[in-house]
């Protein structure tokens, strides 16, 4: 708790923050932010993956939900993720101003006062959690609050500026959405939803470290201790390889547990192998330029990996879809080679 208090002081109101507060007061008088600036605070691009994985968890869960309540659940997940992003931007406005990737955000550009961004984030967080509790159930609302608190307090305030393992532990915040979607339908947490959580949790480090490999100058400028900055590129590549090797078999687990079907399992196996091969390409790159190129490829592929797997999770549950047909054929022993792989029956 004291660590969190220290974090608040050094990040938002400390030396860097105080220097920045001067420009805030001059350039952005209270109430100056435009609606588009508030929307930018919600990190729409990050939100899209969160919403998608949350919807996949909701759709894959056993049981039925009224379509309007399902839409409210997805809305709550989206708004809560955006709200956490807004609070993150409030806290990180000093380092955002130093990095090329983030200096175009509303707060570094002086588009609004910091307290406006904070109030916006806090109000949306509270509204989304309350609505989730009232409309769906309080387990889902509790998980939503946990994800929000984890992202703001554990990742943003506590870990991000202190340890190169920030993304490993803090990555849990981004892994909650499918579990929340699942809980919205079932009212609880089980091995199936935990496996979806684990999938994103293990996926996050290689995804972010691939980005950090070719953005390491940016992070070094802002003094964020990302792994390539602190431990070097070789150690980062080893860690990427390690997590990719963990991710490949973990990606197949939903099929083995029965959360998803055969099509999911087959695609997860192939894409997991591709993930490992791309991680190996990053490791073996002969020069820094080649390493950056390979890291960009891995970063792009990692996004595709998650989108495809969660799409197949949805497809598997949709009646009459290819995977259902495929599973039926395997059950009936009609698929050539099914017996050979021990899939028939």
């Amino acid at each position, binding site marked *: 708790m004291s660590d969190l208090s220290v974090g608040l002081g050094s990040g938002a109101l400390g030396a860097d923050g105080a220097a920045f507060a001067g420009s805030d007061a001059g350039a952005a008088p209270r*109430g*100056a*932010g*435009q*609606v588009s600036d508030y929307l930018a605070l919600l990190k729409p691009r990050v939100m899209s993956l969160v919403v998608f994985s949350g919807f996949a968890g909701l759709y894959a869960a056993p049981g039925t*939900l*009224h379509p*309007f*309540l399902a839409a*409210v659940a997805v*809305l709550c997940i989206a708004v809560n993720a955006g709200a956490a992003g807004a609070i993150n931007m409030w806290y990180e406005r000093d380092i955002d101003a130093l990095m090329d990737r983030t200096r175009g955000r509303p707060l570094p550009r002086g588009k609004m006062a910091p307290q406006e961004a904070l109030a916006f984030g806090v109000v949306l967080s509270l*509204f989304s959690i309350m*609505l989730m509790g*009232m*409309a769906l159930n309080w387990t889902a609302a509790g998980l939503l609050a946990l994800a929000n608190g984890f992202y703001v307090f554990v990742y943003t305030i506590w870990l991000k500026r202190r340890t190169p393992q920030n993304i490993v532990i803090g990555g849990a915040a981004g892994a909650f959405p499918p579990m929340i979607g699942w809980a919205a339908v079932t009212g609880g947490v089980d091995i199936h939803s935990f496996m979806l959580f684990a999938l994103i949790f293990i996926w996050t480090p290689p995804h972010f470290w691939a980005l950090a490999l070719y953005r390491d100058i940016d992070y070094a400028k802002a003094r964020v201790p990302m792994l390539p900055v602190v431990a070097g590129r070789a150690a980062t590549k080893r860690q990427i390889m390690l997590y990719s090797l963990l991710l490949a078999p973990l990606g197949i687990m939903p099929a083995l547990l029965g959360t998803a079907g055969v099509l999911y399992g087959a695609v997860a196996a192939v894409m997991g192998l591709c993930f490992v091969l791309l991680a190996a390409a990053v490791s073996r790159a002969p020069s820094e330029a080649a390493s950056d190129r390979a890291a960009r490829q891995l970063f792009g592929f990692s996004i595709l990996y998650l989108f495809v797997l969660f799409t197949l999770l949805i497809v598997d549950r949709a009646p009459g879809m290819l995977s259902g047909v495929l599973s039926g054929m395997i059950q009936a022993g009609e698929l050539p080679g099914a017996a050979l792989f021990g899939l028939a029956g």
Partner: protein
Amino acid sequence: MGLMGLMAMNGENDDDRKRRQKFKNWALLTALLAFVAVVYFVSIIRMGGH
């Protein structure tokens, strides 16, 4: 001329700011009305046994 120019500029800024503030107020009103509507429909559905 300098003073007049400054006043004109201030007038423009004030107008711009008022316009943006008005737009923000309408956006907030819309969001609040949408929230009320969502809570209303959620209540109706939950009372229906879902």
